[in-house]
């Protein structure tokens, strides 16, 4: 671990600029091939057109998952920065870089504008279509608008956070005026005023990001799944999806941290402190998942109207029962009965494995919800589900689309780390301002100050 601020900067810039090994390029090529395979899968699926909504359930589930994970991940940096914590300094960039993956998510969203039918099919929505003279594709318009706002806000936060680091790169690589590095740094010179503004503006935009994230999840959950299932009326479901985004966002950051630590060799910066801190957060969010799910479940289960029983059958006890059980176990049971153990929580492997479970659980949860919802899309105009369709298994095209979609996300992230420093340099330098090691009786302790 390097000590002084200058040494930290030199080390991190040096690490960032050093050529990537052959493993990086081999993995990039493999991911590129898999991404292309995903495009092939999309073309295969597209041959049937957008008209048959039930064929697109897995695609929509993929988008929902990527949006949840990539949209929730920046919240790790935003929330901990607002709390003025020191331990997340080395993971803030890791989480903010997911805004670029969200951009990839927007590309995936484009076909969904055609997959989701307009409101003329008679389904009940929030928009009182037919009563108020709203356009029949109002859900498409509002969700697109919300999604674009969210991603732009995330990218803007990333840019603000990057500006000082880009300036370091600009100065240390003698970048000439007019180059992309020079332009991206927007003439940042590190004046007191700029640092002051940066501190405040990241906080403000972070708060907006959070508010928009919740809202966009609300729109997607309601318009892209709940209204397609006749009889499904659940006020808690949209916020459950927003919460799940935070949960899987934290899990995604933990997994990425693990990869950056071992493959990027940042062991000095991604220590047990970061894994333990995020592990606790993930544990708390997993407990909250159960609370949200149970609150939704109990209303439908106790109500027990035929329409409600059909919804429960469709989403939980019917064709997707095993997917539901697996998601329940991975999102709640496993984190609960593992993260209560201190030795596991206070390790690097423990939170990583649990994060893997939460990650897979979230995939299964999205499949359960979205594939089931799109399987009854032809009944959307009814008051209740007339018959619960049997399980829709993924076809060859769906498997390719999922592999390609996930590979594309990893590829985009890897390429972003090639260009932008994956560890936030200015925050590490700032940490050195507030960090002192002092002798305390027989031991040496770390004293951390807090700027106020």
């Amino acid at each position, binding site marked *: 671990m390097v000590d002084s*601020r*200058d040494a930290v*900067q030199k080390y991190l810039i040096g690490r960032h600029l050093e050529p990537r090994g052959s493993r990086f390029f081999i993995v990039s090529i493999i991911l590129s091939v898999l991404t292309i395979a995903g495009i092939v899968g999309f073309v295969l699926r597209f041959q049937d057109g957008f008209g048959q909504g039930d064929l697109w359930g897995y695609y929509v589930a993929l988008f929902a998952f990527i949006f949840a994970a990539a949209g929730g991940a920046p919240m790790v940096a935003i929330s901990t920065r607002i709390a003025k914590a020191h331990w997340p300094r080395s993971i803030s960039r890791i989480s903010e870089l997911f805004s670029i993956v969200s951009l990839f998510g927007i590309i995936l969203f484009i076909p969904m504008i055609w997959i989701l039918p307009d409101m003329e099919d008679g389904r009940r929505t*929030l*928009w*009182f279509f037919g*009563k*108020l*003279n*709203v356009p029949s594709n109002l859900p498409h318009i*509002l969700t697109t*608008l*919300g999604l674009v*706002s969210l991603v*732009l*806000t995330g990218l*803007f936060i990333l840019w*603000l956070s990057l500006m*000082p680091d880009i*300036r*370091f790169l600009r*100065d*240390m690589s*003698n970048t000439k005026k007019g180059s992309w590095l020079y332009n991206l740094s*927007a*003439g*940042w*010179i*590190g*004046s*007191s*005023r*700029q*640092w*002051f*503004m*940066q*501190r*405040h*503006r990241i906080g*403000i*935009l972070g708060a*907006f990001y959070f*508010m*928009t994230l919740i*809202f966009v999840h609300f729109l997607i959950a309601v318009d892209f799944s709940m209204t397609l299932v006749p009889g499904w009326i659940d006020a808690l479901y949209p916020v459950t999806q927003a919460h799940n985004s935070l949960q899987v966002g934290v899990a995604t950051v933990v997994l990425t941290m693990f990869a950056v630590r071992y493959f990027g060799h940042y062991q000095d910066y991604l220590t047990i402190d970061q894994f333990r801190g995020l592990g606790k957060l993930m544990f708390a969010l997993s407990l909250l998942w159960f609370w949200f799910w149970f609150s939704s479940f109990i209303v439908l289960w106790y109500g027990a109207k035929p329409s409600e029983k059909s919804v429960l059958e469709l989403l939980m006890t019917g064709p997707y029962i095993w997917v539901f059980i697996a998601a329940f176990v991975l999102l709640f049971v496993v984190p609960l009965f593992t993260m209560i153990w201190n030795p596991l929580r206070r390790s690097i492997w423990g939170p990583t494995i649990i994060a893997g479970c939460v990650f897979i659980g979230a995939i299964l949860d999205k499949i359960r919800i979205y594939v089931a919802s799109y399987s009854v899309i032809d009944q959307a105009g009814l008051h209740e589900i007339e018959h619960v369709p049997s399980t829709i298994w993924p076809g060859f095209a769906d498997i390719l689309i999922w592999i390609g979609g996930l590979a594309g996300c990893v590829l985009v992230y890897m390429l972003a780390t090639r260009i932008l420093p994956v560890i936030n340099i*200015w925050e590490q*330098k*700032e940490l*050195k*301002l507030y960090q002192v090691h002092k002798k305390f009786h027989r031991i040496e302790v770390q004293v951390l100050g807090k*700027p*106020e």
Partner: protein
Amino acid sequence: MVQVLSAIMGHRSVVGLFSDEDSAADALDALQAANFESNEYEVLTGTPYPDGTFGEAEPVHKLYRFPLVGAICGFSVGLLLTVGTQLGWPMVTGGKPILSIPPMVIVMYEGTMLGAIIFTVIGIVFESRLPRLFMGAYDDSITEGAIGVAVTTSQDRVEDAEKVLNKAGAERVKRGWEKD
């Protein structure tokens, strides 16, 4: 923009480079004693020091007004849109009033958020004086740990500023791009 205007108005910039925080703070005191206004000098660092570390005044800004104004504008547009459409096509739905708050809240919220975000971004760019088209007095060594004290002042006072910075212990004093 400020730098361009400064150059047009005959202002020039100069930066003194210091190796430690105390010397830089002393330089600010010396500039103040030499009757330079607080908006004529600023500290340039590669690390975000706590506000006021060098004795500099806290920047006066209107950053919080931008989101507020944007939110009010966005909320107003959302309100007009929902009220306008509902009064334009008055249909009683589910026995609820024509102007029902719950469905209106959704559009108003999105309008408010959009307005607030857009105005915040504008505010940030404006308040941070970005993009900075011309660097003014700057040196790459600031990235490597040096602390810069930059003075932007009228042409006839540049030499005074240089003297003050040198006297305060600047290791090097450098003029800005306007010297050419």
